[in-house]
């Protein structure tokens, strides 16, 4: 390289001006590292209080706990609480999300499933105040919209951002 200089007796490409800029950028970088670490603890990258959300339909017959920030190829849960359900209940999922994420487990297991236009319905036999959990593993990255509802009832439109 042609940018060799002489620092007293040694030939070297030392550049103090550049070095000072580098030190300054490094110090700023350290601050960023701390910010990222704190944001991560808070859940900005999933898995913390910032990522977790609870939504409820206006009638209150469906409450969903889920992660609005999830990660690619890591599991994310949807916990559905149905305070007033009794007997056979159909949980309707928009099909596009089922294509964007792999359904790992459903707890309890559905009695049957039904595929319709743009949605899939999972049927369960539930007591009041039951909880149904769906565990997914997102395949795609980016913002997703998921529509979940009860058959014959209102539905919730949830947003989830999937990090790489």
């Amino acid at each position: 390289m042609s940018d060799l200089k002489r620092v007293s007796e040694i030939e070297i490409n030392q550049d103090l001006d550049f070095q000072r800029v580098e030190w300054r950028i490094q110090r700023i970088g350290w601050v960023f590292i701390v910010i990222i670490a704190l944001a991560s603890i808070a859940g900005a990258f999933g898995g913390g209080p910032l990522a977790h959300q609870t939504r409820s339909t206006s009638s209150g017959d469906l409450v969903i706990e889920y992660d609005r920030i999830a990660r690619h190829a890591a599991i994310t849960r949807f916990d559905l609480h149905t305070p007033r359900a009794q007997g056979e209940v159909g949980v309707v999922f928009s099909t596009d999300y089922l294509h964007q994420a792999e359904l790992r487990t459903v707890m309890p297991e559905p009695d049957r499933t039904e595929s319709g236009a743009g949605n899939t319905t999972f049927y369960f036999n539930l007591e009041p105040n039951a909880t149904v959990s769906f565990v997914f593993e997102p395949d795609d990255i980016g913002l997703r919209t998921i529509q979940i509802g009860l058959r014959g009832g209102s539905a919730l439109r949830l947003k989830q951002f999937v990090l790489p």
Partner: protein
Amino acid sequence: MDAITRAVIVYLLLLLIFRIAGKRTLAQITTFDLVLTLIISEAVQQAMVDADNSMTNAFLLVIGLVGFDILISLVKERSPWLDRLIEGTPLVLIEKGKQHPKYMQRERIAENDILHAARARFGTRTLEEIRYAVLEQDGEITIVLKKKDEPDPENSSY
């Protein structure tokens, strides 16, 4: 995401993090530096391989990493500015036997680290024997000793 993209993203992210961390971060001074290197490789490996354990994936990742490294080295050769940006510059810490304490503090280098490098290479006993100490781009400290017959103004009676 395909293997080449993953390899390039991992390459760039790690480059950025280690430029921010400073030259000495993984210079393998302590035993733990080696341990840290191993843990970091383990942490990154999962994300790079991404649930695809095929030979094709492994081969493409290596091609991606090595290919990008070649590309970077070609660009560095053309542009000294980018070379400096990616590799950093060396820094003279001891000049004609005189320390630059401010530079040493900025790079988190103690006298002990310089003595360590000098002892390992030349069996040097004291700091006075060192004429030059340079923190190189790779985080290593290189030493130039004073010549034996060189007059030392402070210890002339020695």
